[in-house]
């Protein structure tokens, strides 16, 4: 008897508290909706198109790297530019130029190439191969 009375009064108190806090919380409702939308992003997914889902194609990567080298003023003979040209043997770039080219490739595809891999890139096809192996290159 005493227990049921206690429970009832407690229930009344909580429902009252909920009702009053609901009234207070009402102005906050829009912001809580925004945080909720983070967990249900399907409605907003359409707006987040950063890149194609398929990733980069080989001709596209080749084209972008060759274009980048075309604009690099130290390339001795632009006619030798091809998807297979070697930076030092074909294009006449020295080791410092090669570092600059690799940096430019990094910036073009917005990735960071670790030192070890960067040292191994000496030709256009090596660079293309590396970029294609990177899932976050774009």
């Amino acid at each position, binding site marked *: 008897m005493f227990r049921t009375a206690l429970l009832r009064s407690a229930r009344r108190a909580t429902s009252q508290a909920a009702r009053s806090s609901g009234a207070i919380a009402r102005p906050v409702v829009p912001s809580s909706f925004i945080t909720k939308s983070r967990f249900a992003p399907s409605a907003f997914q359409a707006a987040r198109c950063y890149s194609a889902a398929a990733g980069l194609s080989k001709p596209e990567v080749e084209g972008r790297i060759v274009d980048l080298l075309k604009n690099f003023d130290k390339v001795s003979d632009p006619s030798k530019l091809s998807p297979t040209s070697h930076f030092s043997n074909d294009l006449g770039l*020295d*080791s*410092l130029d090669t*570092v*600059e080219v690799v*940096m430019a490739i990094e910036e073009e595809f917005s990735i960071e190439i670790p*030192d070890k891999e960067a*040292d191994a890139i000496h030709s256009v096809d090596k660079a293309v191969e590396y970029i294609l192996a990177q899932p976050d290159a774009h």
Partner: protein
Amino acid sequence: MALAAYRHLLRSTRIAFQGDAQVLHAARFQARDAFRKNATMEQGDPALGPAIAHAEEVAKILRENVVQGKRVDKEGEERYKLRIHEHTERGDNNTVKMPNGQTVVIDGKKCTDR
């Protein structure tokens, strides 16, 4: 080794002067110039080690101790908005004076104890 230093330096310029093409180009030009000047150094030259160390230090300073600021006056006051990034060295007045993350030993004395 020198190439790695050059790469780090170029990367630091990108971090330090992001979005500021003029200064970025100037910094890269300067870096290229300095490296070209020493390009004839032989392997085993006694000046080689210090030169590389210098480049690495410049890279570190650019990355950790250079902050871009933009003037955004507010309420008639002169104000600058700084772009503090993840690499910026942060410390308080005591630790910032100590090199390489060493900690300051405070002896507990106050000005009034003197």
